[in-house]
């Protein structure tokens, strides 16, 4: 198996704070890879660096072996790498269906199409409805995003990402703030994704991490502490001290 996403010595600091230090990390194709670490460890910054939301100060990012460090975010999405946001970042005025259709149109390069109304793009609408159904958002399909309950908004976060047909999916705390029962629903959707999609997710809920991840990387104060299978990580004394030892987070 080859590394579909790889970084070399990636670094980023904010003033005096070194958020990410010399991180060299690789993500194997088809992986179900979790990124964990205490608050402020730099996980979201790392995802920001991978996706191009924030430029690194040192180091490189490689997608399928190609250097994408200077590529703007929307181009990385076109190459197949998509992310979701920890803090829900949606389109408050657009309905669920509109949002997904928008993402699909952008993917297909129809974003510049200006004559035919949205309602007449049958193919894109059908695909959008399928995604909406798969994510159990069908009852709210025509509701404006701002009127959605929080749990549904998190599902829409994922729906938008899936609409871009990613090969590499970076999820920043997909189940954040969702009550335990519903978060299982979210991960159920993710578990159903085919192996062609490589998934890296940040998560604090250890139950979800251990249930879903096949490989775990632990990030502490901007550096990788250790990496391994869930069993290895659970047994690792350093991890327990730094992270799990904090009374266990559930």
């Amino acid at each position, binding site marked *: 198996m080859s590394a579909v996403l790889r970084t070399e010595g990636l670094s980023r600091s904010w003033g005096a704070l070194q958020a990410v230090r010399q991180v060299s990390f690789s993500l194997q194709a088809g992986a179900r890879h979790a990124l964990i670490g205490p608050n402020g460890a730099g996980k979201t910054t790392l995802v920001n660096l991978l996706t191009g939301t924030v430029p690194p100060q040192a180091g490189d990012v490689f997608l399928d072996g190609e250097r994408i460090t200077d590529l703007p975010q929307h181009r990385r999405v076109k190459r197949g790498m998509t992310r979701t946001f920890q803090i829900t970042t949606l389109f408050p005025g657009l309905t669920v269906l509109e949002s997904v259709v*928008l993402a699909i149109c952008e993917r297909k390069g129809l974003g510049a199409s200006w004559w035919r109304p949205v*309602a007449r793009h049958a193919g894109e609408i059908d695909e959008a409805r399928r995604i909406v159904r798969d994510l159990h958002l069908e*009852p709210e399909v025509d509701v404006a995003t701002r009127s959605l309950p929080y749990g549904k908004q998190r599902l829409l976060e994922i729906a938008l990402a899936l609409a871009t047909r990613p090969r590499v999916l970076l999820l920043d705390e997909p189940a954040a703030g969702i009550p335990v029962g519903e978060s299982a629903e979210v991960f159920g959707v993710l578990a159903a994704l085919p192996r062609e999609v490589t998934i890296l997710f940040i998560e604090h809920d250890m139950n979800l991490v251990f249930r879903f991840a096949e490989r775990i990387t632990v990030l502490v104060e901007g550096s990788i502490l250790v990496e391994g299978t869930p069993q290895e990580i659970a047994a690792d004394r350093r991890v327990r001290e730094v992270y799990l030892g904090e009374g266990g987070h559930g």
Partner: protein
Amino acid sequence: MSAAPAVALPDARWRPAEVAFWLAAVAAIFLFPGHLVLGSQVLITGLFAVSLDLILGYAGIVSLGHAAMFGAGAYTAGLLAKHGWGEPVSGLVAAAAVGAVIAWATSFIAVRGGDLTRLMVTLGIGLLLYEAANRAAWVTGGVDGLSDMAVRDLLGVFPFDLTGRTAYVYSLAVLFAVFLVCRRIVRSPFGLSLRGIRDGARRMPAIGSPLRRRLITVYTVAGAIAGVAGALLAQTTQFVGLEVLGFSRSADLLIMLVLGGAGWLYGGLIGAALFMVAQSQLSSVNPVYWQFWLGLLLVFMVFAARGGVVGAAAGLRERFLRRVAR
């Protein structure tokens, strides 16, 4: 589950209220034959407001200098007519091109930066052009304005006379044609992406959308339309004053659009109508009163409208234009 209304996807179907609106505009020719001069002004300003709606209501760019393209279009048509090329429709095309070029050239800075920088840049460009026109009085007529324009008969048949009838029909036809195009644009995937940029600029690159390119495109199109509106003004009044480039015009336009509601195209037309009719009635009585009450209205609107002024219009927009799904 929730009590939130269900809204259908944007389509191009004509709602009865829309049809009624345009029929009323045509009917005005026969119902208010003595007020057609004011009528054309309303239509022209309405077109100008529609162009601002594209960038403000749909893409979310707050501009205090939209008059730059309007004035440029006005001077283009005016200068053409003054120096021998009096054919109106081609004058419009030239004005559209000039408006588009200016918008395109300035879009690179206008779409960069946050709200404040954009505000400053648009304001600055407007003032820059105003000063330039002021200094180049040998071309533009400066403070005295541009006159002695020889605008030829429309389509070679209809002269622009004092009744204003030709002017009104001309303005209405141009407005309607451009409006049809804008209507299509805002209901298309491109229009959807504009609303995406307005609502969630952070998410747009994350779904693969080239945000800057979209903004540059819509800004250029809006500039072209503003240029057309300016040309219409020049051709129908046969005069171009410096104020077409002034801050006042940009600020008044912003107020009009907001009055009618930004983000649903008709808001610009309705706002322009309300504003100009009210202004023609009240301003002549006492311009200070007009200014004061307008200011007070703005302050009141900002405080009274929930979710701000654009938010309040959103509810209206849903009900007027979009059929409820299922």
